[in-house]
């Protein structure tokens, strides 16, 4: 237990000491919100069913933070530490892999949550964002999306032979996702062909679920999203458990 606590604490400190990761996790999404908020404001629009840009951007940007941490921070950190021999050092102690991995997941989860809290506060204070959902539901939806993307990230790190490849693969998958899933640009303003394409992108399901829950829609309207994300979580976890290695 003490090991889990210390690993989590130190992991969080190390995460925040990495300026690039800290920026993209905590500063980037609120910054985008301020940027687009200053252009469009939060006036209700028929395009978004009577909601404003900020109202739909806040839950969508949660997806942005999730994909940044899950597919960029996670694969790079996991594969780099393995390659540098940090995991070898842990392996030479009685530390169990499950404790190590749990701490790692807790760190990334906490950091993602921190970014989301900053994002929501920015929306609330700066633009009086509307929230019609239930906080518990949103938290559950957030956790599902986050954990399935972490599983995806660990899967990339597990399959990639080197840290460089893990980093490249993570970025190559993450960047198109950011723009084609509705996380950055609402799907409503994109052409129909792109919306078709978006259905093949896992992040779309995170964004759709979170926007829905944020607006107060029921879980029953989002069973497809739940199935896709649970599937990703299960497959990702199974493969990353199989491919985990200390060196």
């Amino acid at each position: 237990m003490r090991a889990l606590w210390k690993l989590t604490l130190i992991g969080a400190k190390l995460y925040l000491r990495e300026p690039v990761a800290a920026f993209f996790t905590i500063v980037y999404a609120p910054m985008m919100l301020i940027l687009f908020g200053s252009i469009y404001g939060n006036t209700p629009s028929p395009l978004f069913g009577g909601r404003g840009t900020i109202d739909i951007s806040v839950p969508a940007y949660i997806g942005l933070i999730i994909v940044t941490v899950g597919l960029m921070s996670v694969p790079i950190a996991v594969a780099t530490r393995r390659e540098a021999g940090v995991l070898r050092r842990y392996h030479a102690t009685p530390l169990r892999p499950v404790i190590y991995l749990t701490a790692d997941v807790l760190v990334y989860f906490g950091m993602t949550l921190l970014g989301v809290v900053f994002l929501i506060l920015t929306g609330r204070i700066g633009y009086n964002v509307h929230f019609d959902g239930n906080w518990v539901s949103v938290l559950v939806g957030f956790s599902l999306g986050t954990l399935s993307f972490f599983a995806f990230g660990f899967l990339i790190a597990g399959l990639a032979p080197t840290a460089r490849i893990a980093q490249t693969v993570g970025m190559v998958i993450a960047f198109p996702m950011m723009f084609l899933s509705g996380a950055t640009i609402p799907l409503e303003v994109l052409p129909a062909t792109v919306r078709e394409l978006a259905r093949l992108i896992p992040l779309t399901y995170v964004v759709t679920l979170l926007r829905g829950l944020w607006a107060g829609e029921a879980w029953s309207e989002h069973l497809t999203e739940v199935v896709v994300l649970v599937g990703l979580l299960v497959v990702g976890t199974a493969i990353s458990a199989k491919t985990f290695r200390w060196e």
Partner: protein
Amino acid sequence: MDTIVQVEGLCKTYGATVAVDEISFEVQEGEIFGMVGPNGAGKTTTIECIEGLRRPEGGSLRVLGLDPQADGYDLRARIGVQLQESSLPDRLKVWEALDLFASFYRRSVDWRSLLDQLGLADKCSAPFGKLSGGQKQRLFIALALLNDPELIFFDELTTGLDPQARRAMWDMVRDTRARGKTVFLTTHFMEEAERLCDRVAIMDHGHIVALDTPEQLIRSLGAESRVVFSIEGDFASESLSESLQVLATVSRVEHAGERVIVYGKGDTLVGEVVNALTSRGTRFRDLRTEQPTLEDVFLTLTGREMRD
């Protein structure tokens, strides 16, 4: 004394490379056991199989009564490990590393005193990435001692350390043994093996080619002493060589310019050489003798002549 590490027929291959080829040996409780050998001899592979970090292909291992593969976690709770190659996150501070690793063990020694002992106290808040090579090495040694282990492995104990730090590590290792612990180390420094180890195994190409106390290794190989001196002026090399070569204790004479090296065995070698020189009236200076060392044994056993 009890056997603390028992290795029987250990084998390990990487693809086509046979890294360790059916070696057997034992380490006794309370001794400093050393392993030397050229690069790629299989030392790290052997030591990491014993620590349970690598899976051997064959043979049986018993360490502190445990099977390193099946009981790896129990074993690693009781041993200390300094790896030849490992790392820590660059931004992790020295004290954080010690505090973190201490949490992995049920009980651990006070890491502040370890830092003092290893001369790292002033680097307590320095990030790992900003430490010098020798400071990193000392931090890894501190991590290996953190759980007050019964058996400690040092894979290249003093690589990267300055002479002063090296002596300090020797004292630390001797002190560890004095407290009843067992030490298993590898080194490339023959002087270190000779001075520090109770027994030394010489490894080459995955085999143990010799294993004994340093004195016994030197004696059994019949390595030769040397008498080295310079002569002045009129160097009639042929006749000088001849008059030295006839001595019973001398096996060979080498000379390069003024410098002469006489190889031979026996306690009377120096006396006989000096006598011969004096009676010939040869003037010499800078005479010294060199006793055979583990280095000579090592070269004899693993040198090219032996290999090809």
